[in-house]
Protein backbone atom coordinates (compact mmCIF):
# COMPACT_ATOMS: atom_id res chain seq x y z
CA UNK A 1 0.00 0.00 0.00
CA UNK A 2 1.33 3.41 -0.95
CA UNK A 3 2.12 5.79 1.86
CA UNK A 4 -0.91 7.89 2.71
CA UNK A 5 -0.60 11.63 2.25
CA UNK A 6 -2.80 13.12 4.93
CA UNK A 7 -3.73 16.80 5.26
CA UNK A 8 -5.28 18.22 8.41
CA UNK A 9 -6.84 21.68 8.29
CA UNK A 10 -7.06 23.28 11.68
CA UNK A 11 -7.67 26.51 13.46
CA UNK A 12 -6.31 27.87 16.71
CA UNK A 13 -8.75 29.42 19.17
CA UNK A 14 -8.52 30.98 22.64
CA UNK A 15 -8.68 28.11 25.15
CA UNK A 16 -12.42 27.31 25.44
CA UNK A 17 -11.98 26.22 29.04
CA UNK A 18 -11.10 29.75 30.00
CA UNK A 19 -13.95 32.22 30.27
CA UNK A 20 -13.99 34.84 27.59
CA UNK A 21 -15.62 38.12 28.25
CA UNK A 22 -15.89 40.80 25.69
CA UNK A 23 -17.19 44.28 25.37
CA UNK A 24 -18.07 46.39 22.42
CA UNK A 25 -16.63 49.85 22.13
CA UNK A 26 -19.82 51.92 21.75
CA UNK A 27 -18.01 54.55 19.68
CA UNK A 28 -16.37 52.31 17.12
CA UNK A 29 -18.45 49.13 17.36
CA UNK A 30 -15.19 47.21 17.62
CA UNK A 31 -15.31 44.09 19.75
CA UNK A 32 -12.75 43.98 22.51
CA UNK A 33 -12.07 40.53 23.77
CA UNK A 34 -10.86 40.10 27.27
CA UNK A 35 -9.29 36.85 26.10
CA UNK A 36 -6.79 38.81 24.02
CA UNK A 37 -6.15 41.37 26.69
CA UNK A 38 -5.48 38.98 29.53
CA UNK A 39 -3.57 36.58 27.34
CA UNK A 40 -5.68 33.46 27.30
CA UNK A 41 -3.49 30.91 25.50
CA UNK A 42 -4.45 29.67 22.09
CA UNK A 43 -5.13 25.99 21.61
CA UNK A 44 -6.12 23.77 18.71
CA UNK A 45 -9.88 24.06 18.26
CA UNK A 46 -11.24 20.93 20.03
CA UNK A 47 -12.65 19.06 17.03
CA UNK A 48 -9.63 20.01 14.93
CA UNK A 49 -7.52 18.34 17.63
CA UNK A 50 -9.64 15.20 17.08
CA UNK A 51 -9.03 15.51 13.32
CA UNK A 52 -5.27 15.63 13.95
CA UNK A 53 -5.48 12.69 16.35
CA UNK A 54 -7.37 10.65 13.75
CA UNK A 55 -4.75 11.54 11.14
CA UNK A 56 -1.97 10.39 13.47
CA UNK A 57 -3.80 7.12 14.16
CA UNK A 58 -4.30 6.47 10.44
CA UNK A 59 -0.61 7.17 9.86
CA UNK A 60 0.41 4.85 12.70
CA UNK A 61 -1.83 2.07 11.39
CA UNK A 62 -1.22 2.40 7.67
CA UNK A 63 1.92 4.47 7.21
CA UNK A 64 2.18 7.85 5.57
CA UNK A 65 2.76 11.47 6.38
CA UNK A 66 0.64 14.08 8.12
CA UNK A 67 0.74 17.71 7.04
CA UNK A 68 -1.13 20.28 9.10
CA UNK A 69 -2.44 23.45 7.45
CA UNK A 70 -3.78 26.57 9.07
CA UNK A 71 -4.81 29.89 7.59
CA UNK A 72 -3.97 32.38 10.28
CA UNK A 73 -1.62 35.09 11.43
CA UNK A 74 1.85 34.38 12.75
CA UNK A 75 0.28 34.16 16.20
CA UNK A 76 -0.68 30.59 15.23
CA UNK A 77 2.97 29.47 15.00
CA UNK A 78 3.00 28.17 18.55
CA UNK A 79 -0.09 26.06 17.98
CA UNK A 80 1.47 24.70 14.78
CA UNK A 81 4.61 23.83 16.73
CA UNK A 82 2.34 21.92 19.12
CA UNK A 83 0.85 19.90 16.23
CA UNK A 84 4.40 18.90 15.28
CA UNK A 85 5.07 17.88 18.86
CA UNK A 86 1.93 15.76 18.76
CA UNK A 87 3.28 13.89 15.75
CA UNK A 88 2.50 15.80 12.57
CA UNK A 89 5.39 15.68 10.09
CA UNK A 90 5.18 19.24 8.87
CA UNK A 91 3.01 22.28 9.32
CA UNK A 92 1.99 24.92 6.83
CA UNK A 93 0.97 28.40 7.87
CA UNK A 94 -1.02 30.12 5.16
CA UNK A 95 -0.44 33.71 6.06
CA UNK A 96 -0.87 36.89 4.06
CA UNK A 97 -2.31 40.31 4.76
CA UNK A 98 -4.66 39.90 1.80
CA UNK A 99 -6.34 36.95 3.55
CA UNK A 100 -7.83 39.08 6.32
CA UNK A 101 -11.62 39.26 6.54
CA UNK A 102 -12.22 36.02 4.67
CA UNK A 103 -15.62 34.39 5.01
CA UNK A 104 -15.93 30.61 4.85
CA UNK A 105 -15.94 30.43 1.05
CA UNK A 106 -12.81 32.57 0.71
CA UNK A 107 -11.19 30.54 3.50
CA UNK A 108 -12.05 27.26 1.77
CA UNK A 109 -10.75 28.63 -1.55
CA UNK A 110 -7.46 29.60 0.12
CA UNK A 111 -7.07 26.25 1.87
CA UNK A 112 -7.90 24.39 -1.35
CA UNK A 113 -5.15 26.29 -3.17
CA UNK A 114 -2.72 25.63 -0.32
CA UNK A 115 -3.48 21.89 -0.35
CA UNK A 116 -3.09 21.74 -4.12
CA UNK A 117 0.20 23.60 -3.96
CA UNK A 118 1.63 20.84 -1.79
CA UNK A 119 1.07 18.17 -4.45
CA UNK A 120 -1.06 15.02 -4.47
CA UNK A 121 -2.92 13.99 -1.32
CA UNK A 122 -5.17 11.13 -0.21
CA UNK A 123 -7.09 12.15 2.87
CA UNK A 124 -8.08 15.58 4.15
CA UNK A 125 -9.34 15.81 7.73
CA UNK A 126 -11.01 18.77 9.47
CA UNK A 127 -13.05 19.29 12.60
CA UNK A 128 -16.77 19.40 11.75
CA UNK A 129 -16.87 22.91 13.22
CA UNK A 130 -14.51 25.18 15.09
CA UNK A 131 -15.07 26.35 18.60
CA UNK A 132 -15.14 30.01 17.71
CA UNK A 133 -16.71 30.83 14.39
CA UNK A 134 -18.63 27.64 14.63
CA UNK A 135 -20.14 27.67 11.16
CA UNK A 136 -18.97 24.21 10.15
CA UNK A 137 -18.98 25.38 6.55
CA UNK A 138 -15.31 25.26 5.62
CA UNK A 139 -14.99 21.45 5.47
CA UNK A 140 -17.77 20.75 2.95
CA UNK A 141 -16.84 23.87 0.96
CA UNK A 142 -13.22 22.76 0.82
CA UNK A 143 -14.25 19.34 -0.50
CA UNK A 144 -16.37 20.98 -3.21
CA UNK A 145 -13.57 23.30 -4.27
CA UNK A 146 -11.07 20.43 -4.34
CA UNK A 147 -13.69 18.50 -6.30
CA UNK A 148 -13.36 15.45 -4.07
CA UNK A 149 -15.91 13.40 -2.14
CA UNK A 150 -16.54 14.19 1.51
CA UNK A 151 -18.18 12.59 4.53
CA UNK A 152 -19.42 14.89 7.31
CA UNK A 153 -19.81 14.38 11.07
CA UNK A 154 -17.72 11.23 11.24
CA UNK A 155 -17.56 9.39 14.57
CA UNK A 156 -15.71 6.28 13.35
CA UNK A 157 -13.25 5.91 10.53
CA UNK A 158 -11.50 2.84 9.17
CA UNK A 159 -10.17 1.52 5.91
CA UNK A 160 -12.34 -0.96 4.01
CA UNK A 161 -9.39 -1.53 1.66
CA UNK A 162 -6.10 0.33 1.14
CA UNK A 163 -7.77 2.97 -1.03
CA UNK A 164 -11.27 2.95 0.44
CA UNK A 165 -12.54 4.52 3.65
CA UNK A 166 -15.56 3.37 5.62
CA UNK A 167 -16.97 5.92 8.04
CA UNK A 168 -19.89 6.23 10.40
CA UNK A 169 -21.57 9.59 10.10
CA UNK A 170 -23.81 11.06 12.84
CA UNK A 171 -26.97 12.96 11.88
CA UNK A 172 -28.63 13.93 15.18
CA UNK A 173 -31.00 11.02 15.83
CA UNK A 174 -29.78 9.02 12.84
CA UNK A 175 -26.54 7.58 11.54
CA UNK A 176 -25.25 6.38 8.22
CA UNK A 177 -22.30 4.22 7.29
CA UNK A 178 -20.63 5.45 4.14
CA UNK A 179 -17.79 4.30 1.93
CA UNK A 180 -15.70 6.24 -0.53
CA UNK A 181 -12.43 5.86 -2.39
CA UNK A 182 -9.53 8.20 -1.77
CA UNK A 183 -9.01 11.08 -2.20
CA UNK A 184 -11.59 11.99 0.37
CA UNK A 185 -12.33 14.77 2.85
CA UNK A 186 -13.72 13.85 6.25
CA UNK A 187 -15.07 16.21 8.91
CA UNK A 188 -14.81 14.65 12.33
CA UNK A 189 -17.48 14.97 15.02
CA UNK A 190 -17.11 14.76 18.77
CA UNK A 191 -16.41 11.36 20.27
CA UNK A 192 -14.32 10.02 17.39
CA UNK A 193 -11.28 9.79 19.66
CA UNK A 194 -9.55 11.30 22.66
CA UNK A 195 -6.59 13.37 21.43
CA UNK A 196 -3.20 12.48 22.88
CA UNK A 197 -1.13 14.92 24.91
CA UNK A 198 2.25 16.20 23.90
CA UNK A 199 5.23 14.27 25.22
CA UNK A 200 8.68 15.56 26.04
CA UNK A 201 10.07 13.43 23.22
CA UNK A 202 7.49 14.89 20.84
CA UNK A 203 8.49 18.41 21.79
CA UNK A 204 12.14 17.59 21.16
CA UNK A 205 11.40 15.97 17.79
CA UNK A 206 9.24 18.92 16.76
CA UNK A 207 12.29 21.18 16.82
CA UNK A 208 13.61 19.42 13.73
CA UNK A 209 10.33 19.59 11.82
CA UNK A 210 9.52 22.36 9.34
CA UNK A 211 6.85 25.02 9.49
CA UNK A 212 6.33 26.22 5.94
CA UNK A 213 4.94 29.66 5.24
CA UNK A 214 2.71 30.12 2.23
CA UNK A 215 1.83 33.62 1.07
CA UNK A 216 -0.64 34.64 -1.60
CA UNK A 217 1.97 34.51 -4.36
CA UNK A 218 2.52 30.79 -3.77
CA UNK A 219 -1.16 29.91 -3.87
CA UNK A 220 -1.87 30.84 -7.47
CA UNK A 221 -4.79 33.00 -6.38
CA UNK A 222 -5.36 36.69 -6.97
CA UNK A 223 -6.01 39.14 -4.16
CA UNK A 224 -9.58 39.46 -5.45
CA UNK A 225 -10.28 35.78 -4.74
CA UNK A 226 -9.25 35.75 -1.10
CA UNK A 227 -9.84 37.66 2.12
CA UNK A 228 -12.57 40.23 2.33
CA UNK A 229 -12.38 40.94 -1.41
CA UNK A 230 -13.06 37.30 -2.26
CA UNK A 231 -15.88 36.86 0.25
CA UNK A 232 -19.48 36.93 -0.98
CA UNK A 233 -20.70 37.75 2.53
CA UNK A 234 -19.61 40.55 4.79
CA UNK A 235 -20.33 41.80 8.26
CA UNK A 236 -22.01 45.18 7.97
CA UNK A 237 -22.70 45.78 11.64
CA UNK A 238 -22.47 44.44 15.14
CA UNK A 239 -25.00 44.97 17.88
CA UNK A 240 -25.34 43.74 21.43
CA UNK A 241 -28.12 41.57 22.70
CA UNK A 242 -29.49 43.56 25.60
CA UNK A 243 -30.33 41.42 28.58
CA UNK A 244 -33.70 42.06 30.18
CA UNK A 245 -32.95 39.90 33.18
CA UNK A 246 -33.02 41.02 36.80
CA UNK A 247 -29.37 40.03 37.35
CA UNK A 248 -29.86 39.78 41.11
CA UNK A 249 -27.24 37.93 43.14
CA UNK A 250 -28.78 36.07 46.08
CA UNK A 251 -26.64 37.05 49.06
CA UNK A 252 -26.21 35.32 52.38
CA UNK A 253 -24.07 32.88 54.32
CA UNK A 254 -23.93 29.13 53.93
CA UNK A 255 -27.19 27.68 52.75
CA UNK A 256 -29.09 30.95 52.75
CA UNK A 257 -28.90 31.75 49.01
CA UNK A 258 -30.10 28.21 48.20
CA UNK A 259 -33.05 28.62 50.62
CA UNK A 260 -33.93 31.96 49.10
CA UNK A 261 -33.84 30.48 45.62
CA UNK A 262 -36.22 27.70 46.60
CA UNK A 263 -38.51 30.36 48.08
CA UNK A 264 -38.42 32.37 44.86
CA UNK A 265 -39.10 29.32 42.72
CA UNK A 266 -41.99 28.36 44.97
CA UNK A 267 -43.58 31.82 44.78
CA UNK A 268 -43.15 32.16 41.05
CA UNK A 269 -44.97 28.88 40.41
CA UNK A 270 -42.38 27.69 37.92
CA UNK A 271 -42.16 24.46 39.87
Amino acid at each position, binding site marked *: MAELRIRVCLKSVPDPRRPVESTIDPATGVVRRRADEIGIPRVISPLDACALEEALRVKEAHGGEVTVLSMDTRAASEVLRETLALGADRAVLVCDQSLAGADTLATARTLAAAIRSLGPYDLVLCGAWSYHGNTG*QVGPQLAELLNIAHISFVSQLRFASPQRVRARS*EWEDRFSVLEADLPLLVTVAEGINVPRRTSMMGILLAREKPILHLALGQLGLSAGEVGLAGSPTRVVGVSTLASKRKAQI*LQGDGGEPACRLIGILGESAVL
Partner: protein
Amino acid sequence: MNDREYQGVWVFAENHGGRLARVGLELLSKARELAGRLETHVAAVLLGNKIKGLAEELQDHGADRLYLAEHPLLDVYHSERHVHVLQGLVEQYKPEILLLGATRVGLDLAPCLAARLETGLSAHCIDLDVDETGRLVQYVPAFGHMCVAKILCSERNPQLATVAPGAFPVRIGGGGKAETIRVSLDLEAQPTRVTMVDHGTVPASRAAELESAQIVIAGGAGIGSLEGWRLLEEFADALGGAVGATRPAVDEGWAASDQMIGHSGKSVQPKLYVAVGISGDMLHMIGMRRAQMAVAINSDPDAPIFREVDYGIVGDYREILPLLIRGLHSRL
Protein backbone atom coordinates in the same frame (compact mmCIF):
# COMPACT_ATOMS: atom_id res chain seq x y z
CA MET B 1 -44.33 41.27 -9.20
CA ASN B 2 -40.89 42.63 -9.89
CA ASP B 3 -38.40 42.13 -12.67
CA ARG B 4 -35.50 40.67 -10.77
CA GLU B 5 -33.74 37.74 -12.42
CA TYR B 6 -33.70 35.83 -9.14
CA GLN B 7 -37.11 35.60 -7.50
CA GLY B 8 -38.77 33.82 -4.65
CA VAL B 9 -37.95 32.89 -1.09
CA TRP B 10 -37.27 29.17 -0.87
CA VAL B 11 -37.34 26.97 2.16
CA PHE B 12 -35.66 23.57 2.23
CA ALA B 13 -38.28 21.32 3.81
CA GLU B 14 -36.12 18.72 5.54
CA ASN B 15 -37.96 15.48 6.15
CA HIS B 16 -37.17 12.09 7.57
CA GLY B 17 -39.26 8.95 7.43
CA GLY B 18 -42.27 10.78 6.01
CA ARG B 19 -42.24 13.54 8.62
CA LEU B 20 -41.28 17.16 8.18
CA ALA B 21 -38.63 18.61 10.46
CA ARG B 22 -40.19 21.38 12.53
CA VAL B 23 -37.54 23.91 11.51
CA GLY B 24 -38.85 23.86 7.92
CA LEU B 25 -42.25 25.03 9.12
CA GLU B 26 -40.60 27.73 11.25
CA LEU B 27 -38.74 28.94 8.17
CA LEU B 28 -41.92 29.03 6.10
CA SER B 29 -43.50 31.49 8.52
CA LYS B 30 -40.48 33.79 8.27
CA ALA B 31 -40.25 33.28 4.50
CA ARG B 32 -43.87 34.49 4.22
CA GLU B 33 -42.95 37.71 5.95
CA LEU B 34 -39.81 38.26 3.85
CA ALA B 35 -41.63 37.42 0.61
CA GLY B 36 -44.37 39.89 1.46
CA ARG B 37 -41.84 42.66 1.68
CA LEU B 38 -40.02 41.52 -1.46
CA GLU B 39 -43.32 41.09 -3.32
CA THR B 40 -42.45 37.58 -4.35
CA HIS B 41 -43.57 34.01 -3.70
CA VAL B 42 -42.66 31.43 -1.05
CA ALA B 43 -41.59 28.01 -2.25
CA ALA B 44 -40.94 24.88 -0.26
CA VAL B 45 -38.42 22.43 -1.68
CA LEU B 46 -39.11 18.85 -0.76
CA LEU B 47 -36.62 16.08 -1.49
CA GLY B 48 -37.40 12.57 -0.38
CA ASN B 49 -39.35 9.40 -0.94
CA LYS B 50 -43.12 9.02 -0.52
CA ILE B 51 -43.44 12.66 0.36
CA LYS B 52 -46.57 13.68 -1.53
CA GLY B 53 -48.51 13.59 1.72
CA LEU B 54 -46.36 16.38 3.11
CA ALA B 55 -47.34 18.84 0.39
CA GLU B 56 -50.55 19.87 2.09
CA GLU B 57 -48.81 20.60 5.37
CA LEU B 58 -46.32 22.85 3.59
CA GLN B 59 -49.11 24.64 1.76
CA ASP B 60 -50.97 25.16 5.04
CA HIS B 61 -47.87 26.74 6.54
CA GLY B 62 -47.43 29.33 3.85
CA ALA B 63 -45.84 27.79 0.75
CA ASP B 64 -47.45 28.95 -2.45
CA ARG B 65 -45.17 26.89 -4.62
CA LEU B 66 -43.83 23.37 -4.06
CA TYR B 67 -40.85 21.79 -5.74
CA LEU B 68 -41.25 18.09 -5.31
CA ALA B 69 -38.27 15.81 -5.95
CA GLU B 70 -39.45 12.32 -5.16
CA HIS B 71 -37.24 9.29 -5.57
CA PRO B 72 -36.43 6.14 -3.55
CA LEU B 73 -32.74 7.13 -3.63
CA LEU B 74 -33.62 10.35 -1.76
CA ASP B 75 -35.23 8.44 1.09
CA VAL B 76 -32.23 8.88 3.40
CA TYR B 77 -30.06 11.98 3.25
CA HIS B 78 -27.15 11.43 0.89
CA SER B 79 -25.00 14.52 0.60
CA GLU B 80 -23.96 14.17 -3.02
CA ARG B 81 -27.41 13.29 -4.31
CA HIS B 82 -29.22 15.94 -2.32
CA VAL B 83 -26.74 18.62 -3.34
CA HIS B 84 -27.03 17.54 -6.97
CA VAL B 85 -30.83 17.72 -6.99
CA LEU B 86 -31.02 21.00 -5.08
CA GLN B 87 -28.35 22.60 -7.25
CA GLY B 88 -30.30 21.62 -10.37
CA LEU B 89 -33.45 23.22 -8.99
CA VAL B 90 -31.72 26.41 -7.93
CA GLU B 91 -30.01 26.80 -11.29
CA GLN B 92 -33.20 26.19 -13.19
CA TYR B 93 -35.63 28.29 -11.15
CA LYS B 94 -33.29 30.92 -9.65
CA PRO B 95 -34.59 31.80 -6.18
CA GLU B 96 -33.26 34.99 -4.61
CA ILE B 97 -33.17 33.46 -1.13
CA LEU B 98 -32.81 29.89 0.06
CA LEU B 99 -33.24 29.12 3.75
CA LEU B 100 -32.29 25.84 5.40
CA GLY B 101 -32.52 24.68 8.99
CA ALA B 102 -29.19 24.68 10.82
CA THR B 103 -29.55 20.96 11.37
CA ARG B 104 -26.76 18.58 10.44
CA VAL B 105 -28.41 18.00 7.09
CA GLY B 106 -28.70 21.74 6.47
CA LEU B 107 -25.17 22.32 7.67
CA ASP B 108 -23.85 19.77 5.17
CA LEU B 109 -26.08 20.64 2.25
CA ALA B 110 -25.85 24.44 2.38
CA PRO B 111 -22.05 24.87 2.28
CA CYS B 112 -21.74 22.40 -0.62
CA LEU B 113 -24.36 24.31 -2.54
CA ALA B 114 -22.81 27.69 -1.70
CA ALA B 115 -19.39 26.50 -2.91
CA ARG B 116 -20.82 25.18 -6.18
CA LEU B 117 -22.79 28.36 -6.82
CA GLU B 118 -19.99 30.56 -5.46
CA THR B 119 -22.49 32.45 -3.38
CA GLY B 120 -22.65 33.66 0.21
CA LEU B 121 -23.86 31.58 3.13
CA SER B 122 -24.30 32.45 6.76
CA ALA B 123 -24.69 29.85 9.49
CA HIS B 124 -27.02 29.47 12.46
CA CYS B 125 -28.92 32.72 11.89
CA ILE B 126 -31.08 33.79 14.80
CA ASP B 127 -33.04 36.38 12.85
CA LEU B 128 -33.58 37.53 9.27
CA ASP B 129 -34.72 40.76 7.71
CA VAL B 130 -34.79 42.56 4.36
CA ASP B 131 -32.92 45.84 3.89
CA GLU B 132 -33.99 48.87 1.85
CA THR B 133 -32.35 47.45 -1.29
CA GLY B 134 -34.22 44.17 -0.95
CA ARG B 135 -31.26 42.13 0.24
CA LEU B 136 -31.45 39.55 3.00
CA VAL B 137 -30.08 40.73 6.33
CA GLN B 138 -28.73 37.78 8.28
CA TYR B 139 -28.19 38.03 12.02
CA VAL B 140 -25.71 35.59 13.46
CA PRO B 141 -24.28 35.40 16.95
CA ALA B 142 -20.80 36.83 16.84
CA PHE B 143 -18.59 34.18 18.28
CA GLY B 144 -17.86 34.22 21.94
CA HIS B 145 -19.42 37.60 22.46
CA MET B 146 -22.70 38.92 23.71
CA CYS B 147 -23.36 40.45 20.35
CA VAL B 148 -24.91 39.77 17.01
CA ALA B 149 -23.30 40.36 13.64
CA LYS B 150 -25.37 41.66 10.75
CA ILE B 151 -24.35 39.92 7.54
CA LEU B 152 -25.16 40.75 3.93
CA CYS B 153 -24.44 38.97 0.70
CA SER B 154 -24.93 41.93 -1.58
CA GLU B 155 -23.78 40.72 -4.98
CA ARG B 156 -24.30 36.99 -5.36
CA ASN B 157 -27.51 34.96 -5.78
CA PRO B 158 -29.20 33.13 -4.32
CA GLN B 159 -28.54 34.36 -0.83
CA LEU B 160 -28.17 31.30 1.38
CA ALA B 161 -28.63 31.02 5.12
CA THR B 162 -29.00 28.25 7.65
CA VAL B 163 -31.24 29.20 10.53
CA ALA B 164 -31.12 27.95 14.10
CA PRO B 165 -34.05 25.67 14.94
CA GLY B 166 -36.41 27.48 17.29
CA ALA B 167 -35.58 30.95 15.96
CA PHE B 168 -39.08 31.53 14.59
CA PRO B 169 -42.55 30.38 15.63
CA VAL B 170 -44.59 28.08 13.43
CA ARG B 171 -47.62 29.80 11.89
CA ILE B 172 -50.48 28.35 9.93
CA GLY B 173 -51.73 30.04 6.81
CA GLY B 174 -50.52 32.80 4.57
CA GLY B 175 -50.33 30.94 1.30
CA GLY B 176 -53.06 30.06 -1.12
CA LYS B 177 -53.41 26.86 -3.08
CA ALA B 178 -49.88 25.85 -3.80
CA GLU B 179 -48.70 25.19 -7.31
CA THR B 180 -46.71 21.94 -7.43
CA ILE B 181 -43.72 21.54 -9.68
CA ARG B 182 -42.58 17.96 -9.99
CA VAL B 183 -38.94 17.43 -10.71
CA SER B 184 -37.99 14.62 -13.03
CA LEU B 185 -34.99 12.77 -11.73
CA ASP B 186 -32.65 10.23 -13.23
CA LEU B 187 -30.64 9.46 -10.15
CA GLU B 188 -29.73 5.88 -11.11
CA ALA B 189 -27.69 7.28 -13.97
CA GLN B 190 -26.01 9.77 -11.68
CA PRO B 191 -22.70 8.40 -10.40
CA THR B 192 -21.89 8.98 -6.73
CA ARG B 193 -18.49 8.88 -5.13
CA VAL B 194 -19.88 8.04 -1.71
CA THR B 195 -21.83 4.81 -1.18
CA MET B 196 -24.21 4.32 1.71
CA VAL B 197 -23.75 0.84 3.15
CA ASP B 198 -25.97 1.19 6.19
CA HIS B 199 -28.16 3.66 8.04
CA GLY B 200 -30.42 3.72 11.05
CA THR B 201 -31.66 5.65 14.03
CA VAL B 202 -29.89 6.13 17.33
CA PRO B 203 -31.72 5.83 20.66
CA ALA B 204 -32.89 9.10 22.15
CA SER B 205 -30.70 10.45 24.94
CA ARG B 206 -31.74 12.63 27.86
CA ALA B 207 -32.03 15.40 25.30
CA ALA B 208 -35.16 14.15 23.58
CA GLU B 209 -37.44 16.36 25.61
CA LEU B 210 -35.16 19.41 25.91
CA GLU B 211 -36.97 21.60 23.42
CA SER B 212 -40.34 21.11 25.04
CA ALA B 213 -39.15 20.86 28.66
CA GLN B 214 -40.66 23.18 31.30
CA ILE B 215 -37.49 23.06 33.36
CA VAL B 216 -33.99 22.87 31.93
CA ILE B 217 -30.82 22.40 33.95
CA ALA B 218 -27.69 23.09 31.94
CA GLY B 219 -24.08 22.40 32.86
CA GLY B 220 -20.85 23.78 31.49
CA ALA B 221 -17.08 23.50 31.77
CA GLY B 222 -17.25 24.52 35.45
CA ILE B 223 -18.78 21.16 36.35
CA GLY B 224 -15.27 19.78 35.99
CA SER B 225 -15.87 16.04 36.13
CA LEU B 226 -18.23 13.24 35.19
CA GLU B 227 -18.93 12.78 38.90
CA GLY B 228 -20.01 16.41 39.07
CA TRP B 229 -22.19 15.87 36.04
CA ARG B 230 -24.01 13.06 37.86
CA LEU B 231 -24.79 15.52 40.66
CA LEU B 232 -26.20 17.92 38.06
CA GLU B 233 -28.39 15.12 36.71
CA GLU B 234 -29.56 14.30 40.22
CA PHE B 235 -30.53 17.95 40.67
CA ALA B 236 -32.41 17.86 37.35
CA ASP B 237 -34.25 14.74 38.51
CA ALA B 238 -35.21 16.48 41.76
CA LEU B 239 -36.76 19.29 39.72
CA GLY B 240 -38.20 16.99 37.06
CA GLY B 241 -36.15 18.86 34.48
CA ALA B 242 -34.26 17.99 31.31
CA VAL B 243 -30.48 18.25 31.19
CA GLY B 244 -28.72 20.51 28.70
CA ALA B 245 -25.08 21.28 28.14
CA THR B 246 -22.65 23.79 26.70
CA ARG B 247 -20.19 22.93 23.96
CA PRO B 248 -17.25 22.40 26.37
CA ALA B 249 -19.33 19.95 28.45
CA VAL B 250 -20.14 17.99 25.29
CA ASP B 251 -16.52 18.10 24.17
CA GLU B 252 -15.51 16.73 27.59
CA GLY B 253 -17.84 13.80 27.01
CA TRP B 254 -20.06 14.45 30.03
CA ALA B 255 -23.10 15.10 27.87
CA ALA B 256 -24.26 13.88 24.46
CA SER B 257 -24.06 16.24 21.50
CA ASP B 258 -27.84 16.45 21.21
CA GLN B 259 -27.94 17.90 24.73
CA MET B 260 -26.13 20.99 23.59
CA ILE B 261 -27.98 24.26 24.01
CA GLY B 262 -26.90 27.28 22.07
CA HIS B 263 -25.60 28.56 18.79
CA SER B 264 -25.08 25.28 17.01
CA GLY B 265 -27.26 23.28 19.36
CA LYS B 266 -30.81 23.45 20.62
CA SER B 267 -32.91 26.45 21.50
CA VAL B 268 -34.98 25.93 24.65
CA GLN B 269 -37.98 27.81 26.04
CA PRO B 270 -38.62 26.49 29.54
CA LYS B 271 -40.33 28.21 32.45
CA LEU B 272 -37.12 27.78 34.42
CA TYR B 273 -33.57 27.52 33.20
CA VAL B 274 -30.70 26.89 35.62
CA ALA B 275 -27.10 27.30 34.44
CA VAL B 276 -24.52 25.50 36.55
CA GLY B 277 -20.82 26.06 35.98
CA ILE B 278 -21.51 28.07 32.84
CA SER B 279 -19.52 31.25 32.32
CA GLY B 280 -22.04 32.82 29.96
CA ASP B 281 -20.51 32.55 26.54
CA MET B 282 -22.80 33.97 23.88
CA LEU B 283 -22.65 30.70 21.98
CA HIS B 284 -24.58 29.08 24.78
CA MET B 285 -26.75 32.00 25.91
CA ILE B 286 -28.31 32.35 22.48
CA GLY B 287 -30.12 29.09 23.12
CA MET B 288 -31.79 30.09 26.40
CA ARG B 289 -33.00 33.60 25.58
CA ARG B 290 -36.62 32.54 25.68
CA ALA B 291 -36.55 30.99 29.14
CA GLN B 292 -39.11 32.68 31.40
CA MET B 293 -36.84 32.67 34.43
CA ALA B 294 -33.11 32.09 34.40
CA VAL B 295 -30.86 31.22 37.33
CA ALA B 296 -27.08 30.78 37.45
CA ILE B 297 -24.81 29.03 39.91
CA ASN B 298 -21.13 29.79 39.41
CA SER B 299 -18.10 30.08 41.63
CA ASP B 300 -16.73 33.10 39.76
CA PRO B 301 -18.55 36.26 40.92
CA ASP B 302 -17.36 38.04 37.77
CA ALA B 303 -18.75 35.41 35.38
CA PRO B 304 -20.69 37.19 32.61
CA ILE B 305 -23.59 34.79 33.10
CA PHE B 306 -24.73 36.63 36.23
CA ARG B 307 -25.73 39.57 34.04
CA GLU B 308 -27.77 37.32 31.79
CA VAL B 309 -29.96 35.66 34.40
CA ASP B 310 -32.62 36.74 36.89
CA TYR B 311 -31.05 35.22 39.98
CA GLY B 312 -27.50 34.19 40.70
CA ILE B 313 -25.81 32.23 43.45
CA VAL B 314 -22.07 32.66 43.78
CA GLY B 315 -20.46 29.52 45.10
CA ASP B 316 -19.34 25.95 44.57
CA TYR B 317 -22.14 24.00 42.90
CA ARG B 318 -20.98 20.86 44.74
CA GLU B 319 -22.16 22.49 47.95
CA ILE B 320 -25.16 24.37 46.55
CA LEU B 321 -26.81 21.61 44.52
CA PRO B 322 -27.13 19.16 47.45
CA LEU B 323 -28.75 21.96 49.49
CA LEU B 324 -31.19 22.65 46.67
CA ILE B 325 -31.92 18.94 46.19
CA ARG B 326 -32.66 18.54 49.93
CA GLY B 327 -34.73 21.71 49.93
CA LEU B 328 -36.76 20.56 46.95
CA HIS B 329 -37.39 17.13 48.47
CA SER B 330 -38.62 18.69 51.72
CA ARG B 331 -41.01 20.93 49.78
CA LEU B 332 -42.70 17.97 48.13
